[in-house]
């Protein structure tokens, strides 16, 4: 009996993730999570860098050397983008928490802005880092 009543209701089903083309705000949302996790991992490096600075010039030089290596720079570039993205997406969420901008059209626009802005921020930071 409960089965028929469930069938009658014809509840909407979750999209099948392997064939469903996620809308931009959905991609944007899961990216927020991934960048957050990546940045959490990054706090390990931040702590290591600070502890190295506190322990003396030799350890600090080692840390700077590792971070300045090609793989180190690639990680830092990734973290810069993750930070820029998470910052902008976080601001979007804080605005959403006030009840503003929660329409399909607005979410579409602001999510595009978050993606675009994250790349602009990354570019600004890295141009500044090399120019200064």
């Amino acid at each position: 009996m409960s089965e028929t009543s469930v069938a009658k209701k014809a509840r909407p089903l979750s999209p099948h993730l392997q064939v469903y083309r996620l809308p931009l705000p959905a991609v944007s949302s899961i990216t927020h999570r991934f960048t957050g996790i990546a940045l959490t991992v990054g706090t390990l490096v931040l702590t290591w860098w600070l502890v190295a600075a506190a322990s003396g010039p030799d350890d600090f030089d080692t840390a700077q050397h590792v971070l300045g290596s090609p793989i180190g720079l690639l990680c830092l570039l990734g973290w810069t983008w993750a930070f820029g993205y998470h910052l902008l997406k976080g601001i979007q969420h804080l605005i959403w928490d006030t009840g503003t901008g929660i329409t399909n059209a607005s979410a579409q626009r602001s999510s595009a802005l978050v993606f675009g802005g994250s790349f602009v921020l990354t570019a600004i930071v890295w141009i500044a880092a090399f120019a200064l």
Partner: protein
Amino acid sequence: MASTSDNGFRTRLGRVRGLGSAKSGGAHWLAYRMVAVLLVPLTVWFLISIVRLAKAEHADAIAWVHQPVNAVLLLITLIATFHHAAAGMREVYEDYIHGKLARLIAIGLTNGAAILLAAASVFAVLKIAFGA
């Protein structure tokens, strides 16, 4: 039959009564938001500072942390960052880890790691700030 469970005669309070209390969920949610708001200016300040220290020698980095304003802002940034990271990871676990014990272990280990890293990084900053 199904309509009895959501009939309009019951008050809002009547509908949620007996479904379990929210306990400190509200406080947790609010703290997560307030720390996030705090992190917007702090992390932007931190990023600008880090960019300026990109090619820093040990003495430059030490001199920067030695400045009382920088040390204080850095301490607040670190504590807020680890609070935010632990709260964010907890949300991820709550969404994706369905086993109660596994979820509890993941949250506990993450909180423990966050406290350890926060303590280590705060200690490093204080050690530099007090000139050891």
